[in-house]
C-alpha cells in the first residue's frame, strides 16, 4: 500500500554492510557489501578490518539500495539503524552514517536492536507476527530464545548460550575438519553425504539437572570439545577422518538441542508460533528438523529465506517500519552505539 511508511534500514553490527528499504511489509531493496573474505584468513571476524570496510562500503551500498528501490532519500519517511548489540567500532560507523543521512535529509532516525530486527525481518515474507510468539535467534554472535509479546515495546529473554554461540561452534568444527570460514554452509554441505547417527555427540544442557537451572539456555563448548577429541583420536590412530559423518553428527546434535528447547518453550508458554532467525537459521537440517518436530505439536514455524536470516539492512528496515506503524518515537541525534544493548530495549 502506497500510504504505508517508506523505511530505510542500515546494518553494520558485524562484517556485513547492509542497506534495506521497505514499504510496510514489502521489501523494495536489500543491498549488501560483505567483508567476510577479508576475515577468512584469520578464522574469525577482525573488528578493525570490519569497521574499515563499513566506512568504505556505506555510501556505495546506499546508492545501490536507492537505485534498486527506485526512490531517493527525500522520499524516505524514517531511517532505522542497528545501534546494538554488536562490535562497537562497526556499530559506530552505521550509527554515524544513519545520523548523517537523517541530518542532511531532515528525517527521523531510529536506533534499533539487532536481535529484534532478526525477528522483524520475517514479517517481510510471512506478514504481521502473531503475538505472543517464541523467537530463536542463532548466529555466529548470538544464540537466544525469546518471548515476543509486542515487538515494538520489548521482548522477554528466556535463555541464551552460556558459552559459544551456535554459529561459533560451526566455525570451530569447520576449522577442525579443514573446512573454510564461515563454517556453517560448508558443514551443511558436507553433512548431506554423512550419517548423523554414526557418532553420538553430547547434547549440552539437556540433562535433568540442567533442565532445572538452564531450561532454555544453550551450551556448545562441550560439544565442540567432544568433536575435537573424537577427530584427534582418529588422527592419532592414523585413521582417516570421515568428514561427512562428523559434520552430520555434529550438526544433528546442535539442531537437536536448538529445536528441542525452542519447541519446549512454545509448549510450556502455550504459544503456537516459533520464529527462527540469524545466520544458523539458514542451515537446512535445522529448518527441516524444526518443521517436522513442530508439526507434532501443532506449532507453526516461521523462518525467513536464507538470504534474510543472515545480517542485512532489510531486517533493520522491517523493524523500523514496525516501530513507525506502532507510533514509537524516534531516537535523539545523540543516540549512542551500544555493543551490549540489552534485548529488553527494542529502540533507543
Amino acid at each position, binding site marked *: 500500500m502506497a500510504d504505508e511508511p517508506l523505511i530505510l534500514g542500515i546494518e553494520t553490527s558485524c562484517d556485513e554492510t547492509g542497506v534495506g528499504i521497505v514499504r510496510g511489509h514489502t521489501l523494495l531493496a536489500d543491498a549488501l557489501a560483505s567483508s567476510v573474505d577479508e576475515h577468512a*584468513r*584469520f*578464522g*574469525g571476524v*577482525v573488528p*578493525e*578490518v570490519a*569497521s*574499515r570496510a563499513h*566506512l568504505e562500503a*556505506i*555510501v556505495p551500498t*546506499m*546508492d545501490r539500495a536507492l537505485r534498486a528501490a527506485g526512490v531517493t*532519500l527525500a522520499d524516505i519517511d524514517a531511517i532505522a539503524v542497528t545501534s546494538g548489540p554488536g562490535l*562497537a*567500532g562497526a556499530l*559506530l*560507523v552505521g*550509527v*554515524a*552514517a544513519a*545520523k*548523517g*543521512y*537523517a*541530518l*542532511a*535529509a*531532515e528525517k527521523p532516525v531510529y536506533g534499533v536492536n539487532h536481535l529484534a530486527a532478526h525477528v522483524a525481518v520475517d514479517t517481510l515474507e510471512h506478514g504481521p507476527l502473531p503475538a505472543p510468539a517464541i523467537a530463536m535467534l542463532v548466529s555466529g554472535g548470538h544464540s537466544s530464545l525469546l518471548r515476543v509479546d509486542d515487538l515494538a515495546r520489548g521482548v522477554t529473554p528466556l535463555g541464551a548460550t552460556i558459552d559459544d554461540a551456535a554459529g561459533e561452534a560451526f566455525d*570451530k568444527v569447520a*576449522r*577442525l575438519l*579443514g573446512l573454510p570460514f564461515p563454517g556453517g554452509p560448508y558443514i551443511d554441505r558436507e553433512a548431506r553425504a554423512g550419517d548423523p547417527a554414526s557418532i553420538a555427540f553430547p547434547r549440552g544442557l539437556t540433562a535433568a539437572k540442567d533442565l532445572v537451572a538452564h531450561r532454555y539456555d544453550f551450551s556448545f563448548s562441550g560439544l*565442540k*570439545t567432544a568433536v*575435537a*577429541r573424537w577427530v*584427534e583420536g582418529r588422527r592419532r590412530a592414523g585413521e582417516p577422518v570421515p568428514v561427512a559423518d562428523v559434520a552430520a553428527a555434529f550438526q544433528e546434535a546442535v539442531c537437536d538441542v536448538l529445536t528441542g528447547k525452542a519447541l519446549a518453550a512454545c509448549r510450556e508458554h502455550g504459544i503456537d508460533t516459533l520464529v527462527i532467525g540469524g545466520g544458523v537459521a539458514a542451515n537446512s537440517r535445522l529448518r527441516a528438523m524444526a518443521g517436522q518436530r513442530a508439526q507434532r505439536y501443532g506449532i507453526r514455524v516461521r523462518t525467513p529465506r536464507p538470504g534474510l536470516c543472515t545480517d542485512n539492512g532489510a531486517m533493520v528496515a522491517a523493524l523500523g517500519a514496525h516501530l513507525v506503524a506502532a507510533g514509537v518515537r524516534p531516537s*535523539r*541525534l*545523540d*543516540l*549512542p*552505539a551500544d555493543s551490549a544493548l540489552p534485548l529488553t530495549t527494542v529502540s533507543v
Partner: protein
Amino acid sequence: MLARAGGVWPGGAGGRLGWLTVLVLVVDSSTPAVTAALAEVTADGVALRAHRCTVDARAHGELLAPQVEAVLADVDARPADLGAIVAGLGPGPFTGLRVGLVTAATMGQVLGIPTYGVCSLDGIGHPGPTGGTAVGERRVLVAADARRKEVYWAVYDGDGRRIVGPEVDAPAVAAARARELAVTEAVGDGAHRYVDVLGLPLRAEPRYPDAATLVALAAARVRAGAPGETLTPLYLRRPDAVAATSRKSVLP
C-alpha cells in the same frame, strides 16, 4: 537565514559577478576534540560563522551530529544551504576518526555536494587563514596523541607547509627526527602530553585541529568547484589482527 544556496553565484543564474559565497560545513573527529563548524568561503576570504567543539575522547559518535545540527541552527541555515563539506582525514585513533568521515560522506551524498579532505595535523601546524600564528622561519613539530604511547606527528616550515609526515612513532623517535629537521617548537595535544620527552618549547595553541584553518586549506578547491573526493582516513597503522593457525587443536 543564509539564503544563498551553496555555490550559486549571487545576482542571477549565470551571472559572473567575480565573487561567490559558499557555506561550508567542516568536521574533525581525529583527536579528543569533536569539532563541527560552518564557514563562509568567499573569493577573498574565509569567515567562520558558527563553531562547536567538545573535548571528549569517548563520545565522538554521540557528540558530532548534534553539533552539526547546532551550528546550522546558529546561523539559521538548513542542510540544503551547504555548498561543500571539509573533513579532517586524521591521522587519529580509528574509531573516533571514522565518525567525522562517515558523517561528512553521508551528508555529502544526500546533498549532492563535494566533500574535501584535509590532513588534520595541518589544522594544527598551519598558521591559519589570518596567518596570526605564523612565526617566520621557525619550524614546528605537530604531535597528536596516538595512544599506545605513540604520537601522530608532522613537521611544518614557517609558512605552514608540511615538510615531513604525517607519521606515527614513539615520542622519542619524533623528537629525534624533529632535532634533525631543526625544529624549534612543538604544538598539539600530543606535544602537551609528551613535552618532557620532546624537549622542545611548547606553543600552547592550537591544541586540536583548528576549524577555520581546515576550511582555509580547502578553500581553493571550494572556490574552484573542484570535484569532491572520497574521504580516505589516514590510519597510518595496520589493523590489529592475528591470523589463526590452521587446524589448531581446540582440546583444553
